[in-house]
């Protein structure tokens, strides 16, 4: 009886264990199925290389390039802000402040991650957007720049927590050795600890990028949603995620436009898959040192 129970339980937990593989495969399959039938009809090159996204004009054009450029612009903008701030904060939290303050700062960083993205978008709309419009004297504050700032804010918790883990897992002997040789704390931090933790920090940045590229509500609310290739960061743009979210509601289920959004989803899936894969490689490297 006991043996039988053990056997049944083992099978059940095994099935749950492989659930993740099944779901990843299913997600890929559904995106691929709908996306592929679109790509067959419309043409892969016209989709990837097309400079115009006019899903409801006639003839319809489904060029995903402006959306990819939009996503890339916003992501680069967010990284330029979030990476230095995030890594420096991680250094500050893990190596400089006393334990009491460290716990407070860490909890605050965790709270950032808890704020719903739609709330971040709303706050951006009412505070940052008018500010950007006024300061830079623009026709609209809904720009790549504004959403980069808000997205940087959302990427910071990911970057800080993972970098911090990496920094703290640097063997203490490294630090002691450097300090014993007469290096100041900062020299040790910058030349020894930061270098030793680098693979983990790179992983943190990759995961931060993944977070930003996949963010939907904030970019939909404050990037301006114009599907043109932006010429500067002070112009509106539109990302892949926002296009899916904004247009799915008005499509005919099973139609060309509907399927084109799945094709965008497939592109996003592949990009994030790649990013996570790289991040995982770097995280694995970090553990070996």
């Amino acid at each position, binding site marked *: 009886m006991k043996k039988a129970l053990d056997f049944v339980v083992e099978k059940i937990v095994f099935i749950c264990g492989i659930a993740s593989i099944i*779901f990843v495969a299913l997600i890929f399959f559904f995106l691929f199925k709908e996306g592929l039938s679109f790509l067959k009809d419309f043409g892969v090159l016209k989709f990837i290389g097309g400079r115009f996204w006019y899903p409801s004009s006639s003839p319809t054009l489904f060029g995903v390039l402006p959306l990819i450029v939009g996503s890339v612009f916003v992501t680069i903008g967010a990284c330029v802000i979030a990476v230095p701030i995030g890594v420096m904060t991680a250094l500050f939290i893990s190596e400089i402040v006393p334990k009491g303050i460290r716990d407070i700062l860490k909890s605050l960083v*965790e709270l950032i991650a808890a704020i719903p993205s739609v*709330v971040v978008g709303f706050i951006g709309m009412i*505070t940052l957007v008018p500010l950007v419009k006024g300061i830079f004297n623009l026709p609209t504050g809904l720009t790549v720049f504004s959403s980069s700032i808000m997205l940087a804010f959302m990427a910071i918790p990911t970057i800080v927590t993972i970098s911090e883990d990496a920094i703290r897992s640097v063997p203490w002997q490294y630090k002691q050795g450097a300090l014993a040789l007469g290096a100041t704390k900062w020299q040790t931090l910058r030349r020894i600890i930061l270098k030793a933790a680098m693979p983990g920090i790179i992983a943190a940045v990759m995961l931060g990028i993944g977070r930003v590229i996949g*963010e939907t509500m904030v970019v939909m609310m404050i990037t301006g949603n114009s599907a043109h290739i932006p010429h500067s960061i002070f112009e509106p743009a539109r990302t892949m995620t926002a296009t899916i979210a904004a247009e799915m509601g008005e499509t005919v289920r099973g139609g060309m436009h509907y399927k084109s959004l799945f094709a965008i989803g497939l592109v996003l899936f592949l990009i994030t898959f790649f990013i996570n894969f790289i991040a995982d490689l770097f995280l694995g490297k970090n553990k070996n040192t």
Partner: protein
Amino acid sequence: MIKLNPKLSQKFSYMFLCLAAFLATTPVILIVFIIIKNGTSVISWEFLLSMPKDGMRGGGILPAILGTLSIVSCAIMITLPVGVCAAIYLNEYAKDDIFTRIIKLAIINLAGIPSVVYGLFGLGIFVMFLKLGVSIIAGALTLSIMELPVIITTARSSLDSVPYSFREASLSLGVSRWQTIRHVVLPNAIPGILTGTILSIARISGETAPILFTAAAFYVPHLPHSIFDQVMTLPYHLYIISTQIPNMPKNIIYGTALVLLMMVLTMSCIAIFARIYFRKRRKW
């Protein structure tokens, strides 16, 4: 290049680091402050417990609150058992081989898929293929898959933190493997699993993109009756009233944002404090 005195350069650098930490953490305080300051005046029992009126421009947000609660509770009921079982498998049963490595890679990738892609997937499989329609259950299933990697990871690390000697002691008394897990490992891992679950609930309460095409409705004139109903949800409602409705009174938007934010932050704070509390009490 000018060579700075190392002591001086350390001082400068620390100032920069401090500034960075300040920049990283003040916005969250500011956001909470702005929303509390502008939203508190609308909060009343009537706002929380009545239907929206005048095309959302008046009345309350009851259907949105109930919608969010029902989707989130359904989602957690689905994802928690599966996630904990998966964690048990990975931590207690799985061998360290290529197959386990693939499972781990799948979990990592599941965690990285953008939320709107989950929305697409949910639309494709639950709404269209399984013909559940735009409904609470379709949204809950979508969210539960999205939250699965988070639950697995937190459950697994709390199982992992139970010392190996506990298992050895139990197994050496002739107790079977499952009984050991059930009566020795799991009870000691419960606090960690619980805090992880609360954090997950907080996270999915605020998600908008995955339920955009699977569960959320612009406006439903009645409260949800069954799991096959479309519902209004708090985050989607906030999105709609802040972008889609002209001449929307600002204070109602702030009020809605405040309710959502408080729901999420309260749960997160409970989880954070619970974790600190349990960590201090742990005897090993």
